[in-house]
């Protein structure tokens, strides 16, 4: 019987996780991949990805993390592609596997972790991409917190944050509440930014990676005001901000260019609209 390329079911997650752990060899073993695929935000998920199966053996997998998000008053279906591995013997089926997922034309597909080979496949399927560069800002690098100079309020208690937010941001806050994400709200005069960050990196390069800011300009302007909160909640002395949000990084900062590029294909959204929420980076952060 020829190998099959088909949607993967939730009941198959344990054996898929075993397959991924043996092929991708990331830290954390099968539990790491179970965590990615058993994400907890509510969404009607049609599958957990696409599996290539030969006989009773899994020979390839493309993970799919779904979410429904409101952007500019419109609901968008997102699918973050993650945990991609195909045995060399079955790579003639890789394009077909991607094709099964990508045939959904109403979906915005994203990827933040593709290898060079996978990036070539995304290029083939006409994904757009931008560098995964972060401006890494040390705690002393963003200058004097402006809240010393004028009225800036930073709220970090999730119980206080959620009532402050409108419906769209509240859903984001609640969907990420069970994960070890730092959430805070910056308020300055009439401006407000809901910010979500996770701890990333290792050794001396551990940093608070800002996955999302509802008002990116306010985040950049008030970075010094939120750094103490990020130190407390994530234990990091460095903050990483998307380089595109911060064209002129402050003094003492540096550009970290080793993260994988952001890839996206969308029927309506631009790549600049894509943030890192609802992706494998969230369950990767651990539980609150």
């Amino acid at each position: 019987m020829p190998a099959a390329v088909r949607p993967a079911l939730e009941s198959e997650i344990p054996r898929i996780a075993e397959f991924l752990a043996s092929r991708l060899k990331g830290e954390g073993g099968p539990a790491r991949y179970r965590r990615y695929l058993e994400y907890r935000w509510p969404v009607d998920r049609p599958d957990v990805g696409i599996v290539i199966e030969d006989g009773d053996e899994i020979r390839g997998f493309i993970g799919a993390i779904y979410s429904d998000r409101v952007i500019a008053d419109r609901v968008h279906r997102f699918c973050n592609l993650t945990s991609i591995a195909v045995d060399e013997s079955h790579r003639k089926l890789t394009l077909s596997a991607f094709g099964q997922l990508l045939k959904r034309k109403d979906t915005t597909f994203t990827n933040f972790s593709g290898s060079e080979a996978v990036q070539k496949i995304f290029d083939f399927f006409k994904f757009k991409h931008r560098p995964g560069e972060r401006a890494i800002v040390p705690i002393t690098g963003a200058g004097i917190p402006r809240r010393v100079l004028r009225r800036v309020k930073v709220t970090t208690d999730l119980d206080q944050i959620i009532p402050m937010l409108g419906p769209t941001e509240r859903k984001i806050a609640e969907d990420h509440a069970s994960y070890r994400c730092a959430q805070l709200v910056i308020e300055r005069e009439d401006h407000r930014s809901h910010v979500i960050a996770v701890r990333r990196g290792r050794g001396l390069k551990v940093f608070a990676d800002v996955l999302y800011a509802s008002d990116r300009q306010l985040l950049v302007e008030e970075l010094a005001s939120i750094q103490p909160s990020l130190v407390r909640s994530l234990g990091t002395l460095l903050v990483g901000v998307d380089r595109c949000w911060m064209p002129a990084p402050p003094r003492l900062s540096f550009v970290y260019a080793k993260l994988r590029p952001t890839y996206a294909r969308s029927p309506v959204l631009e790549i600049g609209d894509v943030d890192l929420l609802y992706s494998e980076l969230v369950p990767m952060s651990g539980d609150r």
Partner: protein
Amino acid sequence: MSDEISRRVREVVAATFGVPVESLTADSGDQTIEAWDSLNQIHLIVALEGEFGISLEPEDAIALTTVAAIEHAIRDLKA
């Protein structure tokens, strides 16, 4: 015209996968050519687009997994 398309397709396939052009038949493809994998298939599509001055949608191109299917698709596009 058809023979010309067939000859040029087979030359591109042979060059992409490193196989003798004489060994190719209409049924040659992902099931018979050992070097056929996803990246080489992408290289093949790019080479065919260059050779014939055509543009293939990726969702259509992934179905082109035999010499016969490629020849058929190119004849349709050139018709």
